């Protein structure tokens, strides 16, 4: 199950490594380093899942999330944050996001979240 994933994070070391690991598992991953680029890249080709950082220069994660939901309500967005803690039961205080995870997140957890997000939108490409 290869997914089109768009990663947006200003922490390059992190986001590039993450992209490589997802790539190793057969996913198509695009990487951007700020909010505006994330929106532009999204419009070029709609991904199946977006993973965005909550605190980015330019456009913040919150604004990106709002604009994404306004344009494509069905596109699932996973929020990664070093700031906002999330309850153990995955309760999401960030309205509209599919899930909010706190860095550092276990890779397996993130992978599960991405898969779940893709499944929820019903756009799984084989």
């Amino acid at each position, binding site marked *: 199950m290869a997914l089109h994933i768009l990663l947006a994070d200003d*922490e390059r*070391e*992190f986001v590039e*490594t*993450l992209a*490589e*690991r997802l790539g*190793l598992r057969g996913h198509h991953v695009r990487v951007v380093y700020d909010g505006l680029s994330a929106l532009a890249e999204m419009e070029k080709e709609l991904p199946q899942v977006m993973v965005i950082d909550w605190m980015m220069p330019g456009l913040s994660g919150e604004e990106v999330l709002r604009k994404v939901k306004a344009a494509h309500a069905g596109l699932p967005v996973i929020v*990664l944050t*070093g*700031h*906002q*803690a999330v*309850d153990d039961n995955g309760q999401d*205080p960030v309205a509209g996001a599919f899930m909010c995870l*706190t*860095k*550092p*997140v*276990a*890779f397996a957890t993130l992978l599960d979240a991405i898969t779940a997000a893709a499944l929820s939108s019903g756009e799984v490409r084989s």
Partner: protein
Amino acid sequence: MLASLKTKFFDAFGHAFEVPDEVSPERYRSLRRIMTWLMVAVSVTPLLLLTGINHAQYMRTLEREMENPLYALVRKSQASLELFLGERASTVSLIAHAYNFDELTSGTTLTRVFMALKSEFKGFVDMGLVDDKGRQVAYVGPYELLNADYAKQPWLHETQVKGRYISDVFLGLRGIPHMVIAVQRMEESGRTWTLRVTIDTAQLEELVASVGLMQDTDAFLCDAKGVLQTNSRFYGKTLEKLPLSLPPRSLETTVRHISDAEGTRLVAAYTTLAGTDLTLMAVKPATDLLRPWTSLRSELLIVLCGGIAIIVIVSHLLMKHLVGRLEASDERRVAAFAQMEHNQKLSSIGRLAAGVAHEVNNPLAVINEKAGLAQDLLSMDGDFPHKQKLIGLLQSIESTVERARSITHRLLGFSRRMEAHQQELSLGEIVEETIGFMERGAKNRGVSITTEGFGEAPRIVSDRGQLQQVFLNLMGNALDAVADGGAIAVRCAAADDGGVKVQVSDNGKGMSEEVRKHIFEPFYSTKKDKGTGLGMFITYGIVRRLGGDIDVESEEGRGTTFTITLPHMPPQSAGGDA
């Protein structure tokens, strides 16, 4: 001078009324002393002044009361004595001018006149006519004094100078005390002669005594040299020297305070009789008159001392009460201030910890992903030396990152926002659930867990999950603290403000004052290898966020009690930072 006094006053009092940094008993003792004495001084001073004025006025009144009867007595006696002497002098003068020398010396004229005189006026003893050479040429009376020579008698000289003379009392030729009234007559023919009568001094005594003397009062006449002219009750017989100092001559009635030879205080009223050298004196001992004052003084003294004692006692009690209140209020204020400082400190630490956790999370995430990628890459390659070792190392990195993650997440948990998970709940249920988690562990070690008061406790609005974490933490700590077979008690009671108070007590090893002070700070753990040192820190953060308070009492070897108070409703700002 005034300015320096003022400065000193405010130094003393300003210091006493300053807001204290800490509550020292000495400070309040000195404050109480200063205020008590100030109040006593302020109250007693007018009392003393009043008593002093009262005393002075009473003394003055008493003196007047003592003086007035004497004064009246002297005035009355003076009037009768002056009348007595004046009448007699005028009568003698009338006779001297009505008759000539020849008429009085011839036949029985003098006897006839004297008899008429005696029948009209009391006190006459005899009467005689003295010629210009001092010889008594005619005489009527009980003594053999015809032809007596008076040329050397002082009264004759005085009469020749003044024309009319009333003598002092003297013995004269007859050797008996008497006084002389003499009038000189100068006839038209140029003949000069003197008519003299003598008066019995008993008459004077009668007159002095007739005014009615009190038992302790003495009244008498004396001459200018201080020789008694009448018998005195206490100071000697006629013609004896008066043992009192003689006041200066005064025609006005005067009252003086004098002392006798023994030092007894006396009040004396006196006046000089008009036309004579005689002084009329009335004397009364002053001490006797002061007797009522002495008894009043002791009553006054009792009232004064009683008043002062009451003032001192009341001031002492009042100030003790007031300063006690002040001390208690200061203590409360200092305690509240300390509590506020403590809360602020913990809140700052919480914020700092969250900030650090956030900053650490990003690099942790990088490490995590790098290690993960390395593992991914390794798993795709074939075997090579140390491959397994490298995989183990990378897994160790991942698990260490996981450990760090759990710490930063819990740190963030301290200050994380709390969206509404609030509901009306029963603390009893939460505590029972929590006990359910621990029951097995407790049973294995023979530890009893009892609950009390949850049935009656009011339901409150709060966050169930968070409270569960709080009780799990507190009871977990209690379980760790007690020895096998120990006891844990969870008690609940309604608080004053509609909230509840929950106490978790254990009879375990307790904690030192040092530990107790730092118990709510992050990474402060006594369970060296077991805990993260964040449990109590998070518990504190949750309780504060829920609008409550947490406090701990502990005694080493006796046990520990955590007390949590929770409001009926969490405050509006519950969603904010702790």
